[in-house]
């Protein structure tokens, strides 16, 4: 048994033993979990995948004379931002697209530019155009603003993602007779291909399936800088069926994350365009897992062959919110580039980059080994498999209008 404080003391002295979630597998197989749990202090995880529930908020500073953008309309590089806050606080969502983007009017739309790309450009140090129109007040007389602005010009620039790091996800296929364009990519008809999106054995929440160490306040690698777990993510659904090792068999837990955008690196925050679907942001996240005991260790050593995902039809089952899995496949199978469905060999591809997830886990390992990154203890646990949380669908209720008197 070790405590996070003890591990941090070792990190400060440069004596902590740190391995990535990929390296730990062979280590445990060779030496056994009991011995490795004593020797290893931290296991680092990583993931680099598209995460639509991403965004950033900014305080752009007060213009002279002042303008109340709050309650008006504002854009960054023609991408609309949310202005329902104080005078010069704005919020940009990763999936926002310019008003004049044709979207899917000419199907499938290209969605070349949107909120995710604005975030990437700002982090790369580029200037963007901030434009705003609003109403005047006695204290904020201006009604119009047009200026160039960089991240350095802003007071605060904070990445805040209400949902990231999905613990497992569907494998998407298409049973229909036409190609379909989805957030899981272009799916060819009649089981032409199968797309998945998880770093599997490197993925943070798959290495800590019951959230024993990852909680509110956990310090993480976020977009190349340091960030924190802010809360459980939206759609956090820990009570799904699990394997004997406790690994969820379907999409399950999520985390909300927050961090200073000014510290981040565009290599780990990439604007992303899905043909026929829209724009998003691909986010690099790495979470360190302190090896407190044999159990935490055993869970970090989970292998791709131990993690299964459900194959779901995105032509009918998913859009109609039906339930039903066509098959269950392991990440080890998916990563070979081919799975067998209905007796047919189906080529697979991922939208989460395993190569870059591995790189993130390596960078985080390096930071910890150098004593540059200390572990934090969570201040509140995430709801786990005993929470009784049910991930609800929307039950639509008819709106009754009152008769005018």
């Amino acid at each position, binding site marked *: 048994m070790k405590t996070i404080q003890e591990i941090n003391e070792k990190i400060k002295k440069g004596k902590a033993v740190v391995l990535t979630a990929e390296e730990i597998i062979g280590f445990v197989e060779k030496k056994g979990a009991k011995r490795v749990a004593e020797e290893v202090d931290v296991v680092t995880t990583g993931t680099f995948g598209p995460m639509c529930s991403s965004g950033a908020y900014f305080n752009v500073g007060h213009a002279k004379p002042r303008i109340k953008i709050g309650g008006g309309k504002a854009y960054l590089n023609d991408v609309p931002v949310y202005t329902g806050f104080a005078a010069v606080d704005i919020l940009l969502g990763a999936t926002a697209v310019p008003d004049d983007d044709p979207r899917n009017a000419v199907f499938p739309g290209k969605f070349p530019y949107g909120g995710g790309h604005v975030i990437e450009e700002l982090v790369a140090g580029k200037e963007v155009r901030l434009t705003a129109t609003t109403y005047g007040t006695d204290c904020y007389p201006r009604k119009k603003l047009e200026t160039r602005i960089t991240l350095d010009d802003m007071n605060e620039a904070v990445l805040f993602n209400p949902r990231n790091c999905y613990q497992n996800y569907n494998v998407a296929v298409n049973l229909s007779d036409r190609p379909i364009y989805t957030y899981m*990519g*272009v799916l060819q008809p009649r089981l032409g291909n199968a*797309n998945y999106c998880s770093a599997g054995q490197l993925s943070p929440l798959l290495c800590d399936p019951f959230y024993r160490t990852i909680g509110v306040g956990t310090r993480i690698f976020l977009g190349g800088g340091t960030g924190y777990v802010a809360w459980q993510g939206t759609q956090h659904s820990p009570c799904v069926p699990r394997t004997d090792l406790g690994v969820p068999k379907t999409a399950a837990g999520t985390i909300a994350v927050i961090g200073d955008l000014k510290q981040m690196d565009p290599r780990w925050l990439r604007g992303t365009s899905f*043909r026929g679907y829209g724009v998003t942001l*691909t986010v690099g996240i790495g979470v360190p897992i302190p090896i407190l005991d044999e159990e935490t260790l055993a869970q970090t050593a989970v292998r791709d062959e131990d993690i299964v995902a459900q194959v779901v039809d995105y032509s009918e089952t998913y859009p109609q919110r039906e339930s039903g899995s066509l098959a269950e496949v392991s990440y080890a199978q998916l990563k*070979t580039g081919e799975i067998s469905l209905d007796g047919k060999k189906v*080529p697979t*591809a991922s*939208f*989460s980059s395993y190569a870059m997830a591995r790189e993130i886990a390596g960078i985080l390992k390096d930071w910890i080994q150098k004593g540059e990154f200390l572990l934090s203890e969570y201040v509140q646990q995430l709801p786990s498999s005993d929470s009784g949380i049910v991930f609800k669908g929307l039950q639509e209720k008819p709106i009754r209008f009152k008769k005018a008197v």
Partner: protein
Amino acid sequence: MTTTKVVLRFPPDLTDQPVTYNLIKEYDLMVNILRGHIIPKEEGMLVLEVTGKKKQLQRGMDYLAKIGVETQKLSKDIRWLKDLCTHCTACTSLCPTHALSVERNTMLVSFEKADCIACEMCVTVCPYSAMEVQV
């Protein structure tokens, strides 16, 4: 003998013409069809590997131009912008010739230009604009 890969784009009125047959019979060319997409009376696209004497090849291309088939040389068309690639692998399952492939140990993507038939599927599916058509 010279070998070249070409993309042929047919206007609607030529989709029912025996163009490939004429290339073989009239111009003594060996034609290997790598990929085809033809909707009668709408449009057509053929990717061909054509082998023959240099002079005959030129005559064959002149014939195509004359009847209104747009031709474009292959393999130099598609460019992999390595710095933009995240190695997500999304392109690899749809690449018909496996010009884009994954090294399974490293999970890194690579692009073998010589195998590319410029079907442009990768350009459509790459979320990071890392595949580009060179004009």
